[in-house]
């Protein structure tokens, strides 16, 4: 892993824990943010290949509903989360086989279509999903231990943080591998890959399945945190939100998604607190400003600051 990331990573992790100690309500916000960050990490993989999915909320919902459906049978987080990731992987593979053939707008729209079909199913199959009312998830055990609510929240936050660190590290390893390095070729000229004897479709499929698994895991964590899942999780605006976070955080580093997710959630909370009727407008304006004036996102801003400091030193 890039050594330049070690310090900011540690600083960010410490900040998250410190803030959560100082303000207990942030435990929940940060857990959800980190879980979304995992899904955005997946979006980042696809962005490297120049592809935007406008439907990845699908996999968040797949993960979340996996937890909700299995909770009556399985009461253990350490089992539920891997199952959520597995469900994301399976659905991601099935959908990926289809969408990996398409590029650009078609890729984005097909993902959108699949997520909207899934959303409709969640609403429709009322007998199983309870429709928009959603399914309640009784608090599961962690490692066989039934924790009190506060301890549980801490455990989920710390666990998610650990997962974010581990998976962030793994994704950065992945991006440094030949497979990861081949992703940009899909963005520019994928025939180059074909002439190197490599199927661009398969490269994209691998990234796609990985992104689905990450989003599935993120969805599982969200279900274990909110303890209530609704079909809204898979609505297309939530997919747009994931892409938004990816750009906000910056696609240049694996820290970007988590940085973006945390800032997104905080901006939304404070915008909603200050302007309950117009928080969406504030978020839109933030996004607009980022794209127009700092297209490399928050991580890009950080890099610029640090680089400038380095140059001065």
């Amino acid at each position, binding site marked *: 892993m890039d050594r330049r990331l070690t310090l900011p990573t540690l600083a960010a992790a410490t900040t998250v824990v410190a803030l959560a100690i100082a303000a207990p309500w942030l435990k929940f*916000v940060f857990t959800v943010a980190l879980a979304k960050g995992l899904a955005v990490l997946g979006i980042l993989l696809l962005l490297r290949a120049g592809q935007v999915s406008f439907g990845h909320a699908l996999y968040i919902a797949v993960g979340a509903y996996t937890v909700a459906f299995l909770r009556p049978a399985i009461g253990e987080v350490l089992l539920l989360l891997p199952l959520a990731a597995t469900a994301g992987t399976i659905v991601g593979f099935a959908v990926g086989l289809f969408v990996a053939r398409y590029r650009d707008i078609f890729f984005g729209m097909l993902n959108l279509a699949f997520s909207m079909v899934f959303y409709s199913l969640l609403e429709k199959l009322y007998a199983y999903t309870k429709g*928009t009312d*959603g399914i309640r998830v009784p608090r599961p055990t962690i490692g066989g231990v039934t924790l009190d609510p506060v301890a549980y929240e801490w455990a989920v936050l710390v666990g998610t943080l650990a997962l974010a660190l581990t998976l962030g590290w793994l994704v950065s390893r992945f991006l440094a591998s030949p497979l990861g390095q081949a992703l940009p070729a899909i963005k520019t000229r994928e025939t180059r890959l074909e002439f190197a004897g490599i199927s661009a479709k398969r490269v994209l499929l691998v990234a796609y399945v990985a992104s689905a698994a990450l989003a599935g895991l993120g969805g599982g964590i969200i279900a274990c945190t909110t303890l209530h899942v609704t079909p*809204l999780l898979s609505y297309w605006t939530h997919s747009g939100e994931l892409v938004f976070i990816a750009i906000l955080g910056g696609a240049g580093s694996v820290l970007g998604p988590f940085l973006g997710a945390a800032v997104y959630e905080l901006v939304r909370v404070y915008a909603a607190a200050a302007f309950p009727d117009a928080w969406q407008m504030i978020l839109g304006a933030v996004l607009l400003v980022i794209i127009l004036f700092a297209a490399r996102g928050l991580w890009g801003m950080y890099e610029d600051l640090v680089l400038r400091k380095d140059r001065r030193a």
Partner: protein
Amino acid sequence: MAKLTRRTTLQAAVASTLALPALLPRQAIGQQKPSEIRLGISTFLSGPASVFGVPGRNAADLLIEQFNRAGGIGGVPIRSIVIDEAPGVDFLLGECRRLVQNEGVDVMLASISSGSCLAVAPLAEQLRMPTILWDCGTQRIFEEASYRYCVRTQANAVPEIVAPLLYLMKIRPDFRTLAVLNQDYAWGRDSWAIWKAAMDAVKPGVRVVAELFPRFGATDFSTEITRLLALRPDVIFSTSWGGELDTFIRQAAERRLFERSTFVLPLVESSLERVGKTLPEGVIVGGRGDHWFLHPTAKDTRILKDFTAAYRQRFNLYPIYPTFHMAQALYGLKAGYEKAISANGGSWPSREQLMDTMRGLEFAHLTGTMKIREDGQGLEPMLIGMTKHVNEYPFPVIDRMVLFPPELTMNPIGTKGLDWVRLLTPASVQRAPAEIPYRA
């Protein structure tokens, strides 16, 4: 707070996050009389359901001002903090935590969406947060779990659907065919399930000729209307609301569907002013409780007259059922606090004392008095009637009103609504009270 949030930089956001908790050191159980009661309200401020959410919020603003002018509750003024439940459960639960753990909110008034209520109730237990469910309709909440910190100050889906059915049976017992057109989401499905089960119990053999569930948020029902025109069912039942109900009514009126079938619209009270006399006479009207600004027994009371006048003056609209629901929540809260204070010998009650008092509480509100049952469920009558056009108003009024008492329409504690409605009999219809005609 406002100053902090206006800063937009990351640093400021982080800094303010750090600073906020320190600003508000509060004890979990405040036995001392607080300087203010902080009231968190979750409601829809965006999206289609803001048709209900914003009137609810408006009612809260109006009543809280009134309460505070009169000395608040037990001498303590109320301050409300409103949050938007539109972005979804994950956001709402974060906001609730923020309100409780950061803003030091004393009481929550939770949610319009049933999904939100189902998610918030367990959190309320966890945070020991007194919570009043002010508008959501699902009967699942108190049937599937028991909560110490949650009560509901209105009825639920069961009486809201059973009452119009009993009314239909009374007014037009001879119908043979029926079609349903509901929004395709939990409420639309739930309310149909209740209706169907109850109808099969009180009048077996009715043929359901079409079950139409157009997409939630649909903007066009002309295909559905063509089909209904062709099928000519005796009765068309729809629990749709908001813009979709308005659209359905307009499109149905333009194509004279009202001339062919009897409509049962249990939520149409909230659309009357908007659709105006496009809605013909003879449509069965409900409003999720006994809410109407011309409530037959309360319309001449000071409290309702003043409220309607003040609301109209401020918002240029007549109050609709969500405003009444909000009022019930606030009157209930006030009554609960006051009773708990006096039971506590004049000193400020703990959260637990407050919530214990809320159970079994009877309190007066805009249209009468209501009671909160031991399980936390509110009991209120159901006002069902039929549209009538009069000169005094540019929109239909409700005539031939029947006020169904809760005993007739609400399942007892410990039963499940969907099971209980199957036990209804044709005799239930006979027990309905007498009609009250509209009087100007």
